[in-house]
């Protein structure tokens, strides 16, 4: 997993829960990196899983909610780092429907070893988008947070339904309706 996902996560934890909580979850986790991350590095997904699980245990906030909040926050990182990329899109459905066909294609050019989830477009109309999410990481809540932020970025609102096709969350059907 790319280092920027870790550094941004730790920054957010420190901002929301303080340095003590951040130190606590790092100390509680068994991290090969020792909790020392750089945005340009690459780290085991397992480390993120432990950090999120321990944060949930310490704060009492569910893992799902934590991931969704992090997803909402992470969009700001993308907005800051790749503004010209977002400017190519006129509306949120256009952006979301081209994750697989355009965005991930470009991501792979910069990070050939990136392990990316799959987003298959099942249906796209003026106001709705149905996509199938597939990832062994089962981080669909993170994705959901990103989607919410996408609509906020364009100043629009949507109802997003996430239906688990696989119980573990590795296959999820997103049905997005613009309001």
């Amino acid at each position: 997993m790319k280092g920027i996902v870790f550094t941004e996560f730790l920054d957010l934890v420190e901002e929301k829960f303080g340095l003590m909580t951040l130190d606590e979850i790092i100390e509680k986790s068994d991290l090969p990196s020792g909790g020392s991350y750089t945005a340009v590095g690459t780290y085991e997904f397992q480390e993120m899983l432990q950090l999120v699980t321990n944060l949930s245990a310490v704060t009492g906030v569910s893992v799902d909610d934590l991931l969704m909040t992090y997803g909402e926050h992470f969009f700001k990182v993308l907005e800051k780092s790749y503004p010209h990329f977002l400017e190519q899109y006129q509306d949120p459905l256009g952006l979301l429907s081209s994750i697989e066909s355009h965005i991930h294609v470009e991501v792979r050019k910069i990070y050939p070893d990136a392990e990316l989830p799959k987003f298959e477009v099942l249906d796209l109309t003026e106001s709705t988008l149905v996509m199938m999410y597939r990832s062994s990481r089962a981080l669909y809540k993170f994705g959901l947070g990103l989607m919410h932020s996408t609509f906020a970025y364009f100043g629009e609102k949507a109802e997003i339904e996430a239906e688990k096709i696989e119980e573990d969350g590795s296959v999820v059907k997103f049905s997005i309706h613009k309001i």
Partner: protein
Amino acid sequence: MSDQEIAVLKRALQRERLARKKAESILEQKASELYDTSQELKKSNLALQSLLREKSSELKGVFENLVDAYVVMDLFGNVVKMNEAAEDLLGFRMEEEEVNLMSMAHPSEVDRVIQAFDKLMKEDSVANFEVRIKTLRGESKTVHINASLIRDEQHKPIAAQGIVRDITELMQLQKQKEELLESLGRSNEELSDYAHVVSHDLKSPLRSIDALVTWILDDNKETLDETTLANFDLIKQTLEKMEQLISGILEYASATSMDQKMLAVNVSDLIHGSIQMLHVPPGIQIEVDSGLPQVMCHPTKIQQVFQNLIGNAIKYMDSDAGQIHVGYQERDSHHEFFVKDNGPGIGQEHHQTVFKVFQSVSPKSSSSGVGLSIVKKVIEFHGGKVWLESVPDKGATFFFTLKKDL
């Protein structure tokens, strides 16, 4: 600040420090990778530049050394590039004048040039376009042009290129050849007509002499002595010989007349046809090989060849057990036929002369002396050769060939 807070801060600081070092090492590695890649790129860039220079120089060489004129025009027909051969042919230099295609077209060819240029634009190329031009020096020339459109990477036409060949001389030669052939045809016809007229004109006084001699004989039968009668007989024989010679001229003159078409014929049929036309005395056996080929020829002419050769073998046969053998041998590019006999044979000194007109070797009166010359004329007309092999008193063999791809 509590000890715990100090410990947390220390750990946080340690983590940040480690992260920084890690980042530095990663960036260091990336920088080194970038450097390597940039070096590689530089190298391949140099290689590409040198390749480009090499190819450009090759192309320039081809362009300049092209024997034919090479011209590049824009899409409006303005000449934008040309080689030396083109400058020589068209009579101007790029640096000195701006020239459009239309200004080079001969006034009578303007419409055709416009049509050809339209075709080039629509169909991408024009092949074997022959047209008259007027060079800037004012000379009229005939040129042969192959042209094509040049397109850019988006497949948009950007220019047109053409190879222009001066065929003025070639066309003149072609014209001369045609005129020569026509005049040759006319002379041949005149010659043939002449032969007909001459033979007819010569024969009528002969017939008059013959009639007069017959009357003199009839009127004076009683009074003429033996010697005079014998002389009259000689006159009549000589007249007959004369008549044969004149017929021979006519036959020879028409031996290769082109009235008939070339046909694929079975040679066996031709040989048997010619034997039927001949009187074969009882003492002579004629053997014809089987498995003779089909050949492309003028059938009646080749039948005449066999008739003459077999006829000669019969005519001069001096043996009581005459044997005539007509055979065949296949050669790479030719069919080879022969007519072999066991007659008196022909001396070496006559092997060339027998094929000449009126060169009969035999004193026999029935020989007109044109038979073998007709054979030679017909065979040569068919692209073949005729020759003979002979041992005096043992017989003679006449060979001739016919080209396979007629």
